[in-house]
Every structure is written in C-alpha cells, then in structure tokens.
C-alpha cells in the first residue's frame, strides 16, 4: 500500500462514497412521478405533401381512390374490412340471443331517424364509400372506398346523397390536400350524428374542432387529434359506443395512458373501482352546443310552426338541452341491444341499448350518460318497433303518410307490418367520454355527496349516500341495483 501509485484515486473514491452513500440513503427524497401519459401517444410521422402527386383530372370518387391505391395498394382493402365500410361489427353474443350476431348501423334501429334500411341515400351520406343507395350496394368493390372523407381537407370536400361527392367538389384539389385525419375530418360525420351538429352524442359537437381547454383538456389544452386516442392500425380505428357496439373489444380506456391510481388524494383513489374517470372529469354534457334529449315522432306531419330545435313537420317535436347534468348508471362496458323484431311492452319504456352492470357487479362503475328518449312507432299487433321509410320516393318526408312509410320500410327490412301502428316510448344511452375537463374543473365531493349532491343513491342500489351509509360492499342490492 505504501507505494501504490494510484492510492489517491482509491482514497478519493472511498471518501466520496462515504459522503454520498449516506446522503442518498438517509435524505428523504420526494418520490418521482412515474406517470408518463405521453409515452402512450402515437408518433406523428412527417406529412408528405401530396399536392404534386396527383395530376387528375378526376371525374368521380372511385377514380381518386384508384389513384390513391397506386401507392397505398392495401389501403382500400383495409378500410373495406372495417365497420366504417361495412357498418357492421364482428359478431357478438347479445343477451337473450343464442348465436353471436354481427350488428351495426346497417341492421339496427335507434330512436333518432330509426334506421337506415330503406333510407340509405340519406343515411349513407356519412358512409366512407361511394354510392350505397340501396340494399344492392356492392361491398366487394373496394374502389368505392372514399379516401377523401377522412384524408382530404374538409374545406375542399363534401359528400352528398349515397355518399357521392357533393356537386361542385373539385376532386383534384381535394385529393391534393390529403393528410392524416384531423378533428374536422372525423367531426364531419361524428359531430353531426343524428343529422345535425351535436344532435346525438351529447359529448361530440362542432366545438371540438377547435375547443377551448376547459371544454376538452386533451384537444383544447394539449392539442390532441382524435387519432391520438382513437389509435389506428391498418385503418382499424380503436373506439366504440354502445349505440352499435355492445362488447368492449374495441374499447379505449383512460388507463391506456393514465395510471389508475394517479390521484395523490387517497379519498379519490378509493373511488376509482366504483366511479368511472368520466363521471368526475365530465361534469356536464353538451357544454357548448345543445343536444337532443327527446324526440316525439308522433307529432310529425302537423302543420305547426317550424323551428329546427323544437318542431319540424317531417320529424316531429324535439327537446334540446345544453350543459346537461348527465344521468348516472352502473355500466360494465357492455350493453344489451334491441334487435329488429324483438318484442316490446308498449306500455313501458323500451331500452334500445341498456348499459349492463349493477352495484353487485364488481366490473361495473358509475358512468355518466346522456339519455335520449323518444316516442316512436311500433306495430300495434305484433308488438315490435317498426322501421319507416322516410327518405326518398314514397317516404314520410315527402308523403307524410305513416302507413305507407311503414309498408315501404317493412319491405326493406323484411319485418312484417300488420297495418296497425301506435306510439311507444324508447330510451337510448350515450355514455359520455369526450369533453374531458381539466382536473381542476372536475366534480368535487359535494357535487355528489351531501345534501345538494346530484346522485340518486337509492336508485343506484345504495342504502343512501355512501359517504354516510358505506360503499357498495355493504349494499344488498334491490333488484340488480342498476337503477334500470
């Protein structure tokens, strides 16, 4: 040791270790946050300017698609495999059915415009394809895939009846503008579900094209595009809603990016098994644009004064509301679904897509819903909901003759119409998942608990306010406790 030349280095190391190790070991360091939601976001690849890649001229939509396919050979085929094209999902087992059934917009009823069968040209304005005007549409012809509706700058492109390019659209300009889909592309159809801005969802409307940050923290504050959450692989876009999709196969979860237990406050963390993130973080629906909450078809056809938000002769009476307090129900992600021909009890409210789950279902959480209630027609003899033809020749919107409209609808669906119809009440559930407000605007304790709380605890299956009466562990549910 006496003559070891590098003893100084050994000594220096030892000294520093003897200083540093105790400091690191004994100082109480703040825990480092482990939450990194940004890591889950997709890359945004460099955009290729397509303006020089298309020469045109294009006289029809399919010609544009063919041009696209020259480089993106698989693209149309990929789209053709998705529900955006087929308007049908993968077969799922629906409660009460024996076999899995493929359901989707193509074959379901709702309580807005009722259903697309016989009404194709009107409904398929929003189909990601060209020319679906009747039952004979050829789904195997992939050149009818409409690339532009998702990829063109919406200021250059619009669709008309049967999904054909609207008159006057410069297809070359539209093709040259293509890029990854923006909020406005998705919004072209999804903000206008139900036939107009904000009508259907309660959490999707035109304000989301450029939202303020307190309307939607992801898009407003952080600049998200739809596809940042609705991540897409081979044109299969993640996301679903129980209006047409009753299992959770395609579900997007907040916890895909966020930790489930990210709240510092243990009181809040204790809620996450019972309360969906959305319940607190989406305090209200339709915060910017009024959404439709009630539709009475039975008054249609009258010669009443018209107002698009109150009464239209072709559609009947409406109630719109904005800044609505959601309704809260247990929801495990799955839903029952009313299928064409299912019997109803006309004296009761028919639930089109009842959310499943109850207080005793550990996978269920309390979720916020916009509920759309309607009065629509059913067959007074056979006791099932009917599908009228409204669009086109002979349809109700031109003839104002329900009997004829129902006969024509019956021909399209193949569901027998006895010739006698009546009106019944239905309800449709729209879980709220968009318009997530910044954490600092989320609900607070007293919004749900205490004297002025917004929850109907007993309808949810509790004895009373769980703050005082205990949580769901102690609840002996009455019925299924779901409030439904």
């Amino acid at each position, binding site marked *: *040791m*006496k003559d070891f030349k590098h*003893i*100084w280095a050994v*000594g*220096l190391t*030892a*000294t520093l270790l*003897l*200083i540093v190790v*105790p*400091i690191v070991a004994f*100082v*109480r*360091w*703040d825990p480092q946050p482990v939450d990194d939601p940004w890591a889950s976001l997709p890359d945004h690849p460099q955009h290729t300017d397509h303006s020089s890649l298309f020469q045109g001229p294009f006289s029809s939509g399919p010609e544009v698609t063919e041009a696209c396919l020259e480089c993106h050979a698989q693209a149309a085929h990929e789209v053709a495999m998705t529900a955006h094209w087929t308007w049908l999902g993968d077969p799922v087992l629906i409660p*009460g059915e024996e076999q899995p059934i493929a359901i989707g917009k193509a074959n379901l009823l709702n309580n807005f415009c009722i259903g697309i069968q016989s009404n194709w040209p009107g409904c398929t304005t929003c189909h990601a394809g060209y020319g679906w005007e009747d039952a004979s549409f050829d789904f195997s012809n992939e050149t009818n895939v409409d690339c532009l509706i998702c990829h063109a700058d919406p200021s250059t492109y619009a669709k008309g009846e049967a999904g054909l390019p609207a008159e006057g659209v410069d297809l070359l300009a539209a093709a040259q503008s293509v890029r990854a889909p923006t909020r406005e592309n998705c919004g072209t159809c999804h903000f206008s579900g139900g036939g107009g801005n904000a009508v259907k969802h309660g959490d999707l409307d035109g304000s989301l094209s450029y939202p303020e940050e307190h309307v939607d923290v992801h898009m407003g504050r952080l600049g998200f595009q739809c596809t940042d959450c609705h991540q897409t692989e081979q044109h299969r876009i993640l996301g679903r809603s129980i209006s047409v999709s009753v299992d959770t196969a395609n579900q997007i979860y907040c916890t895909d990016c966020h930790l489930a237990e990210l709240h510092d*406050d243990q009181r809040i963390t204790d809620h996450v098994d019972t309360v969906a993130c959305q319940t607190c973080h989406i305090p209200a629906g339709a915060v910017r644009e009024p959404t439709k*909450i*009630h539709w009475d078809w039975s008054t249609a056809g009258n010669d009443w004064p018209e107002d698009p938000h109150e009464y239209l002769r072709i559609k009947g009476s409406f*109630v719109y*509301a*904005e*800044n*609505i*307090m959601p*309704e809260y129900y247990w929801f495990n992600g799955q839903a*029952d679904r*009313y299928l064409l021909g*299912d*019997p*109803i*009890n006309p004296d*009761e*409210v028919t*639930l089109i897509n*009842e959310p499943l789950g109850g207080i005793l279902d550990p996978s269920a959480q309390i979720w916020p819903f916009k509920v759309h*209630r309607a009065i629509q027609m059913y067959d007074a003899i056979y006791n099932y909901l009917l599908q009228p033809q409204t669009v086109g020749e002979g349809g109700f919107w031109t003839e104002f003759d329900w009997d004829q409209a129902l006969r024509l609808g019956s021909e399209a669906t193949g569901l027998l119409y006895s010739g006698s119809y009546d009106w019944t009440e239905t309800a449709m559930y729209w879980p709220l998942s968009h318009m997530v407000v910044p954490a*600092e*605007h989320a609900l*607070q*304790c*007293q919004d749900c*608990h205490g*004297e*002025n709380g*917004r*929850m*109907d605890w*007993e*309808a949810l299956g509790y004895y*009373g*306010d769980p*703050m005082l009466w205990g949580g769901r562990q102690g609840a002996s549910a*009455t*019925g*299924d406790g*779901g*409030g*439904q």
Partner: protein
Amino acid sequence: MRLRLPLHGFLATGVLLLAAGLSTGLLQAAAGGPQQASEDDAGPPLHPDFALLDEEGASVLESGGPVFTLATCGQCHDTTFIQNHSYHVDLGRGQIVPAGEVDGGRPWDISPGAFGRWSPLTYRYLSPPGDERVDLTTAEWLMEMGARHVGGGPGLLARDGAPLEELRPDSSNIEAAIIDPATGQAAPWDWRESGTVEMNCFLCHIAEPDNAARTQALQQGNFRWASTATLAGTEIVALVGEEWRWSRQAFNEAGNADAEALGIRDPQASNCGLCHGLVHVESETPLVTETCAPESWTTLTTGQIFSPERIADSGLNLADKDNLMRSWDIHAERVLSCTECHYSLNNPIYYQEPSGDRPDHLVFDPRRIDLGEYLYRPLHQFAKGQSAQGLLAPELDNTLRGCESCHTMEGTHEWLPYRDLHAEVLACETCHVPALYAPARQYVDWTVLESDASPVTGCRGVAASSIDTGQPLITGYQPVLLPRQDASGPSELAPYNLITAWYWVYGDPPRPVPLRDLQAAWLVDGEYPAEVLAAFDADGDGALSHDELVIDTPAKEEMIAGRLQARGLESPRIAGEVQPYGIHHDVTGEEWAVRDCQTCHTQDSRVTEAFALSDRTPGGVTPALVDDSGTALDGQVVSDGEGGLLYQPATMEGAARTYVLGHDNVAWIDTLGAIAFLGVFAGAAVHGGVRTFTARRGVRSRPEVRKVYMYSVYERLWHWLQTVAILLLVFTGVVIHKPETFGVLSFRYIVQIHNVLAAVLVINAALAAFYHLASGEIRQYLPRPYGFFDAAFLQAKYYLRGIFRGDPHPFEKRPEQKMNPLQQITYLAILNVLLPLQVITGLLMWGAQEWPEAAARLGGLAFLSPLHTLISWLFASFIVLHVYLTTTGPTALSSIRGMVMGWDEVEAYPENVEEGGEPQ
C-alpha cells in the same frame, strides 16, 4: 333485448324505477341546465309533524297568537333545559359585573359576552345601571344587536335573573326603559306589551328561516312575534298588512305543522352562517359578497368564507382568480358541516370525555347517554376552540376536537424535516390557511363620521387603487402570525387578522361616546357644520373625502372634542385598540398549503413581515392590544411613514420566542465570526506575501529533504473524509443560515444533507478517536507539559521570523512526532472544545424535535443556533489557517502531497538521514 318480465322480476323493478325517473329526468333536462337532486333523498324525515303552540299552550291556529317555541318544541324536548344551558342564548348576561371589572376587558365592559362587552365594530354600548348618559338599554340592545342573538337569555331575563315581563315600565330603570335618540331622554318600556324574545329554535332548525323578517320584528320592538317572523319564508304564516296571519291550509288536518315542509333538521352551515359569516353551499351558483360586508361577522372580521366552491368559480372580482382552483374551505369541500366540529357537547356521536377523567386502561368509555336522552335534552353548548376573543365562553375553550383529533401528521408530513418541531411551534392553520381571499376589516375610525353617520373604515385585501371604482379588485391578504397560547401549553404561531379601532371616550371612569352624541357633534341635519368643514375640507369642495376625514392635527382634535364637550361630555379624548381575530376556517389541503420552506426560512420571510394596520393614526394615538385574546403582540406598532401604522412582528421576543433558521440571526455573532475569518485570511495573505517576497529576494539554500512515509492509509482516509465533510457542512450551513442567497437550492434537502454530513463527521471522528487511542497515536496530540512554552515560543518565533529567512523548521516532522507544539495545542483545542461544542449544539438543534426539553433547558434554538453559527465561523477561520500552513513545508504543496500519498517530504535532519525513508 328480450322481454323477460315474468322470469326476471328484478328487471321489471328496474324498468319501473326508470319509468318513474324518466318523467322527472325529462323535466329536469328540459329545464336546460344541471339540476340538483331533490333533498328528499335521505328518505322520510324523522321529525313528526307538530302543533304550533302559543305562550298559553294553545294552538296558534285557534288563538292566532305568536308561536312560542318553548311551548311548541317543549312538547317533546326539554326546552327549559336547552335554554338555560346555552351560551348562544345567554351571551354573558349571567356574568354581568360592574363596569371595569371584566377580566381583560375594557374599563367600560360589563360582561365578557356580547351582552355587555363593547365592540368597536358594532360601537353601541350596553349601559350599566347608574350611568348618567345611557347608550343602549336592554330593549334597545335587543333591537340593535338581536339580529345576531338567538333569543332567550337577555331577551327573557333581567340582569339579576328576574323575568323581564315582571319589570314595571320605568324610565329610570335601564332594563325597563328606552332612550329617545333625538333627546337622549329615557322613556318607559313596557315588556308586557312588546313581549320578550324567547330562544328561537326555528332560526337554526328549519331549512329556510327568514332572518330578515325576524330581524325586522326585533328592530321594531315587536319581540313577541320574532319567532313567528322567522317562519315567514314558509307557507304557514304571512304578514298581512302589519299582522302575522297563520295559514290554515298549510297545516294538516289535525292542525299540525308539516315538519317536512318546514324542513326541521339539525342545523346546517347555512343556519350558522346567518349570524356567523358567509356560508355558501349551493355548488351551482357563484358566490358573491360585498367588500367587507358587515352582515357577515366572521367574514367581515377575518375574510373567512365557508363554502365548498372553488374560488375560481366564485363571482368575486378577485385578482388571479382563474388560478385559484382550491375550494374556499377544504372541510366544506369534503362535505363537512359546522356541527361536525362544533357539536353539541353531549351529542353521543361526538362526545369525548376528557382523557383525565378516564382510567388509563380505557381507550374508549362506551357509557354515554343514548340517542333518546340526547334528543330530549340536547345540550346547546357547542364545542369550540379558542377564539381570539378569549372572553367568550372560556369554560368551553378547546372543547372541539382539534385538527389532530381527526388528522395525523404521520404519513402525510413525511416530507417535512423536523416535523414534530414544526408541529410544536406552528398551528396547523399557519400553513393550511396560507391566505384569505375575501376582504376583511382592517380598521374602523369612529373619531370621525362620514356624512351618512358611518365611521371611516379600511378594508384589507382590496387593491387600493380600485376601492372607488365601484367594482373593487379583491387581492386577498396574508394573515399575520401571532403566538397563540395553545390548549396543550406552549405558544404556537397562528394566523390572525388585526382590526384597529379609534374612538372617542369621555369621563372618568371612561365610556365610549354614545353614537347620538357623536352624530350630533359631526352632523347637523345630516350635513357637516361649517366649523367642521372649515377644519377638514382641505380642497374646499364642500365634501369630506376619505383622506380629508381624519383627525391628524391637534387643532382638529380640539375642535371635535370641543363640540363633544358642548354636549356635556367630560374630557373627550381619542382611544385606540387592536383586536386580533383568529383564523381557523378557509383551510386548504396539501396542494395549496404552504410547502415552500422559504416562506418562513428566509430573511424577509412572512414570520416577521410587517402587517398594515391602517392608513391613518387618528389623534396620533397608538392603539393598544385588547387584553383578552390569548395572544400577544410581541412586536412593535410602528409608523409606515405616511401617517398609517404597521405591526412589525418579532420572533425572537416575548413568550413564543423562537429562532427560525434562515430567518433569524444574531448580528454580533456574524460580525464577530466574519472578523475572525477575514482576520485569519488577511493574516495568512500578508504572511504568505512576505514569505514569497523574501524567498525571491533572499538567497536561500534549498533545504535538504527526504521522503518519509508519514501518514498511514487510515489516517489519510480519516483526514480527507473529515475535510470533505467539514467543507460541505460549512457550505450547507451557510445555505441554511442565508437561504435567500442560494434560492435555487432546496432548503429542505440542504437541511437533511447537513444532518447526514454531521453524522458522517461524528462517526468518522469517533472511529479516529478509537484508532488513535488504540494505537497510542493519541500521544502525538498531547503536548508535553515540560518545556512546552519554550517549544511553542520557538515555533512561533519561527513563523514570525525564521520562516522569512529560510531557517529550518525548529522541530522535525517525524511519523511518530508529526506535530509541532503549536499544532498540538491548536488541535487539542479544536478537538476538545470546538468540535464537541459544535457536535453538541448541532445535536441538540437536531434533537429539538426528539427531545425538546433538553434543547429548551439549554436555551432553546434561540441560544443554540447562534452558538452553532459562531463555532462554524471559527471552524472556517481555522480551515483558512490550516490550509495556509500546509504551504510552509519544503515546497508549497509538499505537505498536501504528503497527506494524499502518505509520503511526506521533510527537511532532513542529519542524524535521521539513514534511518528514515529514502533521501532525495
């Protein structure tokens, strides 16, 4: 969906429930906005319907008379017991003493409670019997102050306990008279005609009491009908013309009032808020308030607001509001109500017996009254803390469960170094009420009157430039920290507002000038008389602005005093007082609480930040602290240089004397230390300069040197570890001492690192001591007494002369005798005096949290910290000297090299050349 009604009954139930909910849901939604769930969620009310009885015990429906709560509620509850055992009812009536005998009160206070204790905020004075000039008689007190009195007590009983209704109208008896404000003359008051004010159960126990109607009835002297008026907001009674009429159809068939419609319930925050302050529990409407709203007492005095609402969502014009995403009060946010802390003291849910009354082996005593007994006789004494106005019901002080009754610091304050020490010297509120976001009264100046006969007031927490804009910008304010005598003994710093007041007193014994006399002195027919205008109206515009309306010269004071004298008031003079108001609400949680150490631990920190008292000093009178508050103004009231006053707190003074690291220091210690440090530095510099100079000039033979293996590996490790530890300790110590100089460094981490380094140093020293003892090397440090002074003198002479001439060192440095006598004596002093002192003072400062008594016995932080600082200065000085002296070897760096590598170059002494190491 398949219809499964017959098989699945539960689904049917659900469908029915939904159908039931549907209609209401639809109605709610159709109304267009979020709606609140109805209040009947909690199921049927427990309280049965009940007959409303009048004083005679007859149904009011039959008699048409006023409801008498003692009879009505007394059908089931022991209202006599309740009324006789409630401070809210009595308000000090039973404690009335002759003026000036209230312990800690003003010379004219006649009771410790609101009935008899004067406040400059309300100004009116309940006169004692025998006063020549009467301000308030009992009846007038009920009219003026009754809005904040629940009834009973002084509303029913004379000061000697006799029922008021038995008093004959008598203008000479202040309990049976009323003063004509115009003449000041007493007139008889007939209690039988007015009736008396019994305890008003409805005020606190119905959902929507009409406090305005009640107050109006009281102000009109219509005492008998005050309880009835409280029901004005319900359907059952209405004012028709001047008469209250019962509405038969609002009663059920049996003639009983519908308890559910009345909303009979235990008191909610909104009930308490009627008298106590601004309460806002509806989450959907934004909270608004007037600037310094006088009707909300606690909000006026402190700015506290009890509401779950986020401050940003309020309707206040509040600076930086958008970022205030915290709630007004975390307890309100977490759905607590007033009565959950301020519970009835025999409420079996909350009741806890004093631990002293309980045998040690019991944690919980299950023997308590059952709910039935409680409902029959609920004690209406409510748990309270220790308010600033310590005179209020002191027998109930600290009956409420304090913060620590529900909360623990364990697991929540782990990040906080010296957690227990902080808990000992700081109230929880100090960090958890960092600021108030509503305006609060700053001062009230009754020496002058505005033209509407109100005093000049100042509001705290409002931007001065915006006061006159009609839309004042609220900035909120940071409360002042004052020592509060805690229930557990020691004083802790707690947040307060200070309200300063000036007013005229007259006579001997002194009394506040009655309002009517003050008004007469200032205003004639609602206008300032010419004499007043001439003295005060500086700009001659005929009106007196806020700045003009102040008594700031002896001439003005004399003029007003003269006008008061002219009304027969003897020797009127200005008095001033400061009343602290404690702050316990507006609590916030973790995220918004004070977490930044430098809030306090920095030189200009808020612990001694000056707190503005006023923008004026009427009559030049420095206000005195009202001596009733359980706190102390240990600092000074000083002028702000512009006519106003500041309170300058002091942490190193008074009962709560404390030493806040990084904030406090003792100037002479730092001066002395700096002189020592710089002196040594300068001395070394001069010495080194002269050495260099002489070395260059003088022809000097390079001494012959040889290499000796001087320091073992362990000795070197010990030395260098000590070096690094001490240097870092000095550095971190400096950061702790002057944190503002090193703003980027986390005070909290630096403190902890300092402590770890100290532990490293001590362990290193202990191991080295063991090594030196065990190996006998310790001898090297012990100077030999024999001839020590000669040797030391020799060595000193060398440093002072020989070293400049290139003389050899007088003592050879050898492995077994490394040190010269001066080194020996220096190290002996450092290792036996400085180091132990530093370790002990440091250990006690660290241990102030673990063994506070030990630290306190040795003078506490206020003594230990400056001593620790002084010793560090001496250590720093020694380091300078030590490093300099290492350069006095054969070459400047040879000694340091020797301490690194072990091989030292020493001057060769001829007799050793062969036996030591290798000569060079």
